Protein backbone atom coordinates (compact mmCIF):
# COMPACT_ATOMS: atom_id res chain seq x y z
CA UNK A 1 0.00 0.00 0.00
CA UNK A 2 2.80 2.38 0.92
CA UNK A 3 4.65 1.38 -2.23
CA UNK A 4 1.67 2.14 -4.41
CA UNK A 5 1.24 5.49 -2.66
CA UNK A 6 4.87 6.48 -3.30
CA UNK A 7 4.78 5.26 -6.90
CA UNK A 8 1.66 7.21 -7.69
CA UNK A 9 3.04 10.30 -5.98
CA UNK A 10 6.25 10.09 -8.02
CA UNK A 11 4.35 9.59 -11.25
CA UNK A 12 2.02 12.50 -10.66
CA UNK A 13 4.84 14.80 -9.59
CA UNK A 14 6.82 13.91 -12.71
CA UNK A 15 3.80 14.61 -14.88
CA UNK A 16 3.18 17.91 -13.12
CA UNK A 17 6.80 18.99 -13.52
CA UNK A 18 6.67 18.30 -17.24
CA UNK A 19 3.65 20.52 -17.71
CA UNK A 20 4.95 23.63 -16.10
CA UNK A 21 2.01 25.84 -17.01
CA UNK A 22 -0.31 23.72 -14.87
CA UNK A 23 1.26 24.83 -11.64
CA UNK A 24 2.79 28.14 -12.75
CA UNK A 25 -0.45 29.68 -14.01
CA UNK A 26 -2.30 29.48 -10.67
CA UNK A 27 0.72 31.10 -9.01
CA UNK A 28 0.73 34.00 -11.44
CA UNK A 29 -3.02 34.25 -11.00
CA UNK A 30 -2.52 34.46 -7.21
CA UNK A 31 -0.07 37.35 -7.62
CA UNK A 32 -2.27 39.18 -10.13
CA UNK A 33 -5.41 38.90 -8.00
CA UNK A 34 -3.58 40.31 -4.99
CA UNK A 35 -2.19 43.23 -7.02
CA UNK A 36 -5.67 44.03 -8.30
CA UNK A 37 -6.82 45.01 -4.83
CA UNK A 38 -4.52 48.01 -4.27
CA UNK A 39 -5.35 49.12 -7.80
CA UNK A 40 -9.07 48.78 -7.21
CA UNK A 41 -9.18 50.21 -3.72
CA UNK A 42 -6.39 52.75 -3.82
CA UNK A 43 -2.84 52.79 -2.47
CA UNK A 44 -3.79 53.69 1.10
CA UNK A 45 -1.25 51.78 3.21
CA UNK A 46 -3.22 51.52 6.45
CA UNK A 47 -6.35 50.28 4.68
CA UNK A 48 -4.32 47.76 2.68
CA UNK A 49 -2.58 46.35 5.72
CA UNK A 50 -5.95 45.98 7.38
CA UNK A 51 -7.51 44.01 4.52
CA UNK A 52 -4.30 42.13 3.63
CA UNK A 53 -5.13 38.91 5.59
CA UNK A 54 -8.50 38.58 3.91
CA UNK A 55 -7.23 39.49 0.46
CA UNK A 56 -4.34 37.04 0.54
CA UNK A 57 -6.59 34.28 1.84
CA UNK A 58 -9.32 34.86 -0.74
CA UNK A 59 -6.71 34.96 -3.50
CA UNK A 60 -5.19 31.71 -2.22
CA UNK A 61 -8.66 30.14 -2.18
CA UNK A 62 -9.29 31.11 -5.80
CA UNK A 63 -5.82 30.04 -6.93
CA UNK A 64 -6.31 26.63 -5.32
CA UNK A 65 -9.57 26.33 -7.18
CA UNK A 66 -7.85 26.98 -10.48
CA UNK A 67 -5.73 23.85 -10.28
CA UNK A 68 -8.49 21.62 -8.92
CA UNK A 69 -10.37 21.09 -12.15
CA UNK A 70 -7.40 19.29 -13.68
CA UNK A 71 -6.82 17.13 -10.62
CA UNK A 72 -8.43 14.01 -12.07
CA UNK A 73 -9.35 15.15 -15.57
CA UNK A 74 -6.36 13.92 -17.58
CA UNK A 75 -6.30 10.60 -15.77
CA UNK A 76 -10.01 10.29 -16.31
CA UNK A 77 -9.75 11.01 -20.02
CA UNK A 78 -6.89 8.60 -20.69
CA UNK A 79 -8.33 5.83 -18.52
CA UNK A 80 -5.73 5.85 -15.72
CA UNK A 81 -8.49 6.41 -13.18
CA UNK A 82 -10.04 3.11 -14.15
CA UNK A 83 -6.72 1.41 -13.52
CA UNK A 84 -6.72 2.93 -10.03
CA UNK A 85 -10.28 1.74 -9.46
CA UNK A 86 -9.27 -1.80 -10.42
CA UNK A 87 -6.05 -1.87 -8.39
CA UNK A 88 -5.99 -3.99 -5.23
CA UNK A 89 -4.94 -1.05 -3.05
CA UNK A 90 -7.70 0.90 -1.32
CA UNK A 91 -8.80 3.73 -3.59
CA UNK A 92 -8.94 6.28 -0.78
CA UNK A 93 -5.19 5.90 -0.16
CA UNK A 94 -4.38 6.27 -3.85
CA UNK A 95 -6.62 9.30 -3.98
CA UNK A 96 -4.70 10.76 -1.08
CA UNK A 97 -1.50 10.53 -3.15
CA UNK A 98 -3.14 12.55 -5.91
CA UNK A 99 -4.40 15.15 -3.45
CA UNK A 100 -0.93 15.41 -1.91
CA UNK A 101 0.52 15.97 -5.39
CA UNK A 102 -2.00 18.72 -5.98
CA UNK A 103 -0.98 20.38 -2.76
CA UNK A 104 2.74 20.04 -3.51
CA UNK A 105 2.40 21.68 -6.91
CA UNK A 106 -0.45 24.12 -6.21
CA UNK A 107 -0.62 24.71 -2.46
CA UNK A 108 2.99 24.75 -1.33
CA UNK A 109 4.17 27.33 -3.92
CA UNK A 110 1.31 29.59 -2.80
CA UNK A 111 2.51 29.32 0.77
CA UNK A 112 6.08 30.08 -0.20
CA UNK A 113 5.05 33.05 -2.32
CA UNK A 114 2.71 34.54 0.27
CA UNK A 115 5.31 36.52 2.30
CA UNK A 116 6.13 38.48 -0.83
CA UNK A 117 2.49 39.39 -1.29
CA UNK A 118 2.24 40.24 2.39
CA UNK A 119 4.98 42.82 1.81
CA UNK A 120 3.15 44.22 -1.21
CA UNK A 121 0.07 44.75 0.94
CA UNK A 122 2.09 46.16 3.84
CA UNK A 123 1.05 43.43 6.22
CA UNK A 124 2.94 43.70 9.49
CA UNK A 125 6.07 41.53 9.57
CA UNK A 126 5.03 39.89 12.83
CA UNK A 127 2.05 38.33 11.03
CA UNK A 128 4.14 36.47 8.46
CA UNK A 129 4.80 33.32 10.53
CA UNK A 130 1.05 33.12 11.20
CA UNK A 131 0.37 33.60 7.49
CA UNK A 132 2.70 30.73 6.61
CA UNK A 133 1.37 28.39 9.28
CA UNK A 134 -2.28 29.09 8.53
CA UNK A 135 -1.75 28.77 4.79
CA UNK A 136 0.02 25.41 5.18
CA UNK A 137 -2.84 23.92 7.22
CA UNK A 138 -5.51 25.74 5.23
CA UNK A 139 -4.37 24.92 1.70
CA UNK A 140 -3.99 21.25 2.67
CA UNK A 141 -7.61 21.27 3.82
CA UNK A 142 -8.69 23.12 0.67
CA UNK A 143 -6.99 20.52 -1.53
CA UNK A 144 -8.76 17.72 0.34
CA UNK A 145 -12.22 19.31 0.21
CA UNK A 146 -11.74 20.52 -3.33
CA UNK A 147 -10.84 17.01 -4.48
CA UNK A 148 -14.40 15.92 -3.64
CA UNK A 149 -15.78 18.53 -6.00
CA UNK A 150 -13.21 17.64 -8.65
CA UNK A 151 -14.14 13.95 -8.41
CA UNK A 152 -17.86 14.70 -8.66
CA UNK A 153 -17.48 16.88 -11.76
CA UNK A 154 -14.70 14.99 -13.57
CA UNK A 155 -17.11 13.25 -15.93
CA UNK A 156 -18.70 16.51 -17.05
CA UNK A 157 -17.47 18.40 -20.04
CA UNK A 158 -18.11 21.71 -18.36
CA UNK A 159 -17.15 20.63 -14.86
CA UNK A 160 -14.84 23.60 -14.48
CA UNK A 161 -17.77 26.00 -14.24
CA UNK A 162 -19.65 23.88 -11.74
CA UNK A 163 -16.72 23.11 -9.46
CA UNK A 164 -16.42 26.53 -7.76
CA UNK A 165 -20.14 26.49 -7.06
CA UNK A 166 -19.83 23.18 -5.24
CA UNK A 167 -16.69 23.72 -3.21
CA UNK A 168 -16.48 27.44 -2.44
CA UNK A 169 -19.24 27.31 0.22
CA UNK A 170 -17.38 24.44 1.84
CA UNK A 171 -14.17 26.51 1.89
CA UNK A 172 -15.72 29.18 4.10
CA UNK A 173 -14.67 27.82 7.53
CA UNK A 174 -11.05 27.59 6.37
CA UNK A 175 -11.24 31.15 5.09
CA UNK A 176 -12.68 32.39 8.37
CA UNK A 177 -10.09 30.80 10.62
CA UNK A 178 -7.20 31.40 8.22
CA UNK A 179 -7.73 35.10 7.71
CA UNK A 180 -8.59 35.69 11.34
CA UNK A 181 -5.38 33.90 12.35
CA UNK A 182 -3.33 36.32 10.26
CA UNK A 183 -5.35 39.33 11.40
CA UNK A 184 -4.91 38.35 15.05
CA UNK A 185 -1.15 37.96 14.61
CA UNK A 186 -0.96 41.36 12.92
CA UNK A 187 -2.81 42.87 15.87
CA UNK A 188 -0.41 41.19 18.30
CA UNK A 189 -2.90 38.68 19.70
CA UNK A 190 -2.48 34.96 20.37
CA UNK A 191 -3.26 32.69 17.44
CA UNK A 192 -3.40 29.34 19.19
CA UNK A 193 -7.16 29.01 18.89
CA UNK A 194 -7.24 29.70 15.15
CA UNK A 195 -4.37 27.34 14.42
CA UNK A 196 -5.96 24.60 16.52
CA UNK A 197 -9.23 24.99 14.67
CA UNK A 198 -7.46 24.95 11.30
CA UNK A 199 -5.64 21.82 12.43
CA UNK A 200 -8.93 20.26 13.49
CA UNK A 201 -10.49 21.03 10.11
CA UNK A 202 -7.45 19.55 8.39
CA UNK A 203 -7.61 16.27 10.31
CA UNK A 204 -11.36 16.00 9.80
CA UNK A 205 -10.91 16.54 6.07
CA UNK A 206 -7.99 14.08 6.03
CA UNK A 207 -10.16 11.41 7.63
CA UNK A 208 -13.35 11.89 5.61
CA UNK A 209 -12.50 13.52 2.28
CA UNK A 210 -10.57 10.56 0.74
CA UNK A 211 -13.59 8.33 1.31
CA UNK A 212 -15.92 10.82 -0.36
CA UNK A 213 -13.45 11.33 -3.23
CA UNK A 214 -13.14 7.58 -3.77
CA UNK A 215 -16.91 7.12 -3.81
CA UNK A 216 -17.34 10.06 -6.19
CA UNK A 217 -14.70 8.77 -8.57
CA UNK A 218 -16.42 5.39 -8.69
CA UNK A 219 -19.69 7.07 -9.59
CA UNK A 220 -18.11 9.33 -12.20
CA UNK A 221 -16.20 6.44 -13.79
CA UNK A 222 -19.26 4.23 -14.11
CA UNK A 223 -21.19 6.57 -16.35
Amino acid at each position, binding site marked *: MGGAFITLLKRDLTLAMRRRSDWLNPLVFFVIVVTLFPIGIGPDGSLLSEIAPGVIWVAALLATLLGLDGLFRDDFDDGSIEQLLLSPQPLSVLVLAKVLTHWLVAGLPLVLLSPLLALLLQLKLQAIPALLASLVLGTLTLSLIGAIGAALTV*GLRRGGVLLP*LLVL*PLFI*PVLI*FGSSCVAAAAGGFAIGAQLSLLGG*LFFLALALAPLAVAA*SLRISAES
Partner: protein
Amino acid sequence: MFRWFHKLASTKNFYRLAEILTPLLAVACAILLAVGLYRGLFVAPTDYEQGESYRIIYVHVPAAWMSLFIYMVMAFCSLLFLVWKMKLADIVAQVSAPLGASFTFLALATGSLWGKPMWGTWWEWDARLTSELILLFIYIGYMALRSSIDNKSTAARAAAILALVGVVNIPIIHYSVEWWNTLHQPASIAKIGTPSIHISMLIPLLLMALGFKVYYLVVMLTKTRNVILEREANSAWVRERVKENRL
Protein backbone atom coordinates in the same frame (compact mmCIF):
# COMPACT_ATOMS: atom_id res chain seq x y z
CA MET B 1 -41.20 -3.47 10.42
CA PHE B 2 -39.06 -4.32 7.40
CA ARG B 3 -42.00 -5.58 5.43
CA TRP B 4 -43.72 -2.27 6.04
CA PHE B 5 -40.55 -0.49 5.00
CA HIS B 6 -40.37 -2.47 1.77
CA LYS B 7 -43.99 -1.84 0.99
CA LEU B 8 -43.58 1.88 1.45
CA ALA B 9 -40.37 1.89 -0.56
CA SER B 10 -42.17 0.57 -3.61
CA THR B 11 -43.09 3.57 -5.70
CA LYS B 12 -46.51 2.17 -6.55
CA ASN B 13 -47.56 1.83 -2.92
CA PHE B 14 -46.08 5.18 -2.05
CA TYR B 15 -48.01 6.78 -4.88
CA ARG B 16 -51.26 5.39 -3.55
CA LEU B 17 -50.47 6.45 0.02
CA ALA B 18 -49.49 9.95 -1.12
CA GLU B 19 -52.70 10.15 -3.12
CA ILE B 20 -54.74 9.57 0.03
CA LEU B 21 -52.63 11.70 2.36
CA THR B 22 -52.16 14.80 0.22
CA PRO B 23 -55.71 16.23 0.41
CA LEU B 24 -55.92 15.54 4.16
CA LEU B 25 -52.60 17.27 4.76
CA ALA B 26 -53.58 20.16 2.52
CA VAL B 27 -56.64 20.82 4.67
CA ALA B 28 -54.57 20.59 7.85
CA CYS B 29 -52.01 22.96 6.34
CA ALA B 30 -54.65 25.54 5.41
CA ILE B 31 -56.15 25.43 8.92
CA LEU B 32 -52.78 25.66 10.67
CA LEU B 33 -51.57 28.56 8.54
CA ALA B 34 -54.87 30.43 8.81
CA VAL B 35 -55.06 30.09 12.59
CA GLY B 36 -51.35 30.73 13.02
CA LEU B 37 -51.40 33.86 10.87
CA TYR B 38 -54.54 35.18 12.53
CA ARG B 39 -53.19 34.66 16.04
CA GLY B 40 -49.77 35.92 15.06
CA LEU B 41 -50.87 39.04 13.21
CA PHE B 42 -53.98 40.05 15.18
CA VAL B 43 -54.12 38.34 18.57
CA ALA B 44 -50.49 38.28 19.72
CA PRO B 45 -49.51 41.45 21.62
CA THR B 46 -47.29 44.14 20.16
CA ASP B 47 -43.66 43.82 21.14
CA TYR B 48 -42.38 46.32 23.69
CA GLU B 49 -39.15 47.09 21.87
CA GLN B 50 -39.74 46.20 18.24
CA GLY B 51 -43.36 47.28 17.83
CA GLU B 52 -45.33 45.62 15.07
CA SER B 53 -42.35 44.76 12.89
CA TYR B 54 -41.48 41.77 15.05
CA ARG B 55 -44.49 39.97 13.55
CA ILE B 56 -42.39 38.96 10.56
CA ILE B 57 -40.93 36.24 12.78
CA TYR B 58 -44.11 34.27 12.11
CA VAL B 59 -42.82 33.77 8.59
CA HIS B 60 -39.11 34.23 9.09
CA VAL B 61 -38.43 31.78 11.91
CA PRO B 62 -40.49 28.87 10.51
CA ALA B 63 -38.85 29.42 7.11
CA ALA B 64 -35.39 29.36 8.67
CA TRP B 65 -36.26 26.17 10.57
CA MET B 66 -37.57 24.59 7.39
CA SER B 67 -34.42 25.47 5.47
CA LEU B 68 -32.34 23.33 7.82
CA PHE B 69 -35.00 20.66 8.33
CA ILE B 70 -35.34 20.04 4.59
CA TYR B 71 -31.58 19.74 4.23
CA MET B 72 -31.61 17.11 6.96
CA VAL B 73 -34.40 15.27 5.11
CA MET B 74 -32.35 15.42 1.93
CA ALA B 75 -29.23 14.15 3.63
CA PHE B 76 -31.13 11.31 5.31
CA CYS B 77 -32.75 10.33 2.01
CA SER B 78 -29.38 10.48 0.28
CA LEU B 79 -27.99 8.06 2.84
CA LEU B 80 -30.97 5.72 2.34
CA PHE B 81 -30.44 5.93 -1.39
CA LEU B 82 -26.69 5.33 -1.32
CA VAL B 83 -26.82 2.46 1.17
CA TRP B 84 -30.04 0.67 0.23
CA LYS B 85 -30.46 1.97 -3.34
CA MET B 86 -33.97 3.05 -2.45
CA LYS B 87 -35.24 4.91 -5.50
CA LEU B 88 -38.01 6.60 -3.60
CA ALA B 89 -35.50 8.24 -1.26
CA ASP B 90 -33.71 9.71 -4.25
CA ILE B 91 -36.95 11.16 -5.59
CA VAL B 92 -37.72 12.74 -2.22
CA ALA B 93 -34.23 14.27 -2.08
CA GLN B 94 -34.57 15.53 -5.63
CA VAL B 95 -37.91 17.27 -5.13
CA SER B 96 -36.94 18.59 -1.69
CA ALA B 97 -33.93 20.58 -2.90
CA PRO B 98 -35.81 23.39 -4.68
CA LEU B 99 -38.26 23.55 -1.77
CA GLY B 100 -35.43 23.88 0.73
CA ALA B 101 -33.79 26.54 -1.40
CA SER B 102 -37.07 28.46 -1.57
CA PHE B 103 -37.50 28.36 2.19
CA THR B 104 -33.90 29.50 2.62
CA PHE B 105 -34.54 32.37 0.24
CA LEU B 106 -37.74 33.24 2.10
CA ALA B 107 -35.83 33.28 5.40
CA LEU B 108 -33.21 35.57 3.87
CA ALA B 109 -35.76 37.90 2.30
CA THR B 110 -37.84 38.22 5.47
CA GLY B 111 -34.69 38.61 7.57
CA SER B 112 -33.61 41.42 5.31
CA LEU B 113 -37.05 43.06 5.49
CA TRP B 114 -36.94 42.83 9.26
CA GLY B 115 -33.44 44.26 9.26
CA LYS B 116 -34.50 47.50 7.59
CA PRO B 117 -36.55 48.88 10.54
CA MET B 118 -34.38 47.16 13.18
CA TRP B 119 -30.82 47.69 11.96
CA GLY B 120 -31.49 50.46 9.48
CA THR B 121 -29.98 48.46 6.62
CA TRP B 122 -31.35 45.88 4.23
CA TRP B 123 -28.48 43.58 4.89
CA GLU B 124 -26.46 43.11 8.03
CA TRP B 125 -23.66 40.51 8.19
CA ASP B 126 -25.41 38.86 11.08
CA ALA B 127 -24.26 35.33 11.90
CA ARG B 128 -27.62 33.71 11.23
CA LEU B 129 -28.28 35.55 7.98
CA THR B 130 -24.77 34.74 6.77
CA SER B 131 -25.21 31.03 7.57
CA GLU B 132 -28.53 31.04 5.73
CA LEU B 133 -26.89 32.66 2.73
CA ILE B 134 -24.20 29.96 2.65
CA LEU B 135 -26.90 27.31 3.03
CA LEU B 136 -28.60 28.79 -0.03
CA PHE B 137 -25.32 28.46 -1.95
CA ILE B 138 -25.09 24.82 -0.89
CA TYR B 139 -28.64 24.14 -2.09
CA ILE B 140 -27.86 25.83 -5.41
CA GLY B 141 -24.71 23.75 -5.79
CA TYR B 142 -26.69 20.57 -5.15
CA MET B 143 -29.30 21.45 -7.76
CA ALA B 144 -26.65 22.58 -10.26
CA LEU B 145 -24.74 19.32 -9.92
CA ARG B 146 -27.88 17.24 -10.33
CA SER B 147 -29.06 19.11 -13.38
CA SER B 148 -25.70 19.15 -15.14
CA ILE B 149 -25.21 15.37 -15.20
CA ASP B 150 -27.19 13.85 -18.05
CA ASN B 151 -27.19 10.24 -16.86
CA LYS B 152 -30.03 10.04 -14.33
CA SER B 153 -28.56 7.39 -12.06
CA THR B 154 -25.10 9.01 -12.01
CA ALA B 155 -26.69 12.35 -11.24
CA ALA B 156 -28.65 10.84 -8.37
CA ARG B 157 -25.63 9.23 -6.75
CA ALA B 158 -23.31 12.19 -7.24
CA ALA B 159 -25.92 14.51 -5.75
CA ALA B 160 -26.38 12.14 -2.81
CA ILE B 161 -22.67 12.27 -2.03
CA LEU B 162 -22.69 16.05 -2.24
CA ALA B 163 -25.66 16.19 0.14
CA LEU B 164 -23.77 14.06 2.66
CA VAL B 165 -20.61 16.15 2.31
CA GLY B 166 -22.80 19.18 2.92
CA VAL B 167 -24.38 17.75 6.02
CA VAL B 168 -20.96 17.25 7.61
CA ASN B 169 -20.05 20.80 6.72
CA ILE B 170 -23.20 22.66 7.71
CA PRO B 171 -22.58 22.56 11.47
CA ILE B 172 -18.93 23.50 10.92
CA ILE B 173 -19.93 26.42 8.71
CA HIS B 174 -22.62 27.47 11.17
CA TYR B 175 -20.29 27.59 14.16
CA SER B 176 -17.39 29.12 12.29
CA VAL B 177 -19.65 31.87 10.98
CA GLU B 178 -20.94 32.49 14.50
CA TRP B 179 -17.36 32.70 15.76
CA TRP B 180 -16.41 35.03 12.90
CA ASN B 181 -19.39 37.21 13.71
CA THR B 182 -18.69 37.59 17.42
CA LEU B 183 -15.11 38.43 16.52
CA HIS B 184 -16.04 41.26 14.21
CA GLN B 185 -19.13 42.71 15.82
CA PRO B 186 -20.20 43.65 19.27
CA ALA B 187 -23.06 41.43 20.45
CA SER B 188 -25.32 44.41 21.08
CA ILE B 189 -27.41 43.86 17.97
CA ALA B 190 -30.84 42.54 18.72
CA LYS B 191 -31.51 39.15 17.21
CA ILE B 192 -34.66 37.48 16.03
CA GLY B 193 -35.88 34.74 18.31
CA THR B 194 -34.59 35.72 21.71
CA PRO B 195 -34.70 32.78 24.11
CA SER B 196 -37.42 34.24 26.30
CA ILE B 197 -40.64 34.66 24.40
CA HIS B 198 -44.08 35.10 25.85
CA ILE B 199 -46.51 32.22 25.49
CA SER B 200 -49.03 34.33 23.55
CA MET B 201 -46.34 34.98 20.95
CA LEU B 202 -44.96 31.46 21.06
CA ILE B 203 -48.18 29.58 20.28
CA PRO B 204 -48.77 31.25 16.90
CA LEU B 205 -45.10 30.71 16.11
CA LEU B 206 -45.38 26.99 16.77
CA LEU B 207 -48.61 26.81 14.78
CA MET B 208 -46.90 28.49 11.85
CA ALA B 209 -43.89 26.19 12.15
CA LEU B 210 -46.17 23.16 12.08
CA GLY B 211 -48.11 24.68 9.18
CA PHE B 212 -44.88 25.15 7.21
CA LYS B 213 -43.90 21.54 7.88
CA VAL B 214 -47.26 20.26 6.65
CA TYR B 215 -47.05 22.57 3.64
CA TYR B 216 -43.69 21.03 2.81
CA LEU B 217 -45.19 17.55 3.10
CA VAL B 218 -48.07 18.45 0.78
CA VAL B 219 -45.84 19.94 -1.91
CA MET B 220 -43.18 17.28 -1.51
CA LEU B 221 -45.72 14.45 -1.83
CA THR B 222 -47.32 16.04 -4.87
CA LYS B 223 -44.00 16.58 -6.60
CA THR B 224 -42.86 13.08 -5.65
CA ARG B 225 -45.98 11.68 -7.30
CA ASN B 226 -45.19 13.60 -10.46
CA VAL B 227 -41.63 12.32 -10.57
CA ILE B 228 -42.80 8.75 -9.90
CA LEU B 229 -45.19 8.99 -12.85
CA GLU B 230 -42.46 10.44 -15.02
CA ARG B 231 -39.90 7.79 -14.11
CA GLU B 232 -42.31 4.87 -14.27
CA ALA B 233 -44.21 6.01 -17.33
CA ASN B 234 -43.67 2.62 -18.92
CA SER B 235 -44.81 0.47 -16.03
CA ALA B 236 -48.10 -1.42 -16.15
CA TRP B 237 -49.74 0.33 -13.21
CA VAL B 238 -49.12 3.81 -14.56
CA ARG B 239 -50.52 2.81 -17.97
CA GLU B 240 -53.56 1.36 -16.33
CA ARG B 241 -54.17 4.54 -14.39
CA VAL B 242 -53.73 6.67 -17.48
CA LYS B 243 -56.25 4.49 -19.29
CA GLU B 244 -58.74 4.82 -16.49
CA ASN B 245 -57.97 8.54 -16.31
CA ARG B 246 -57.22 8.63 -12.56
CA LEU B 247 -53.76 10.00 -11.83
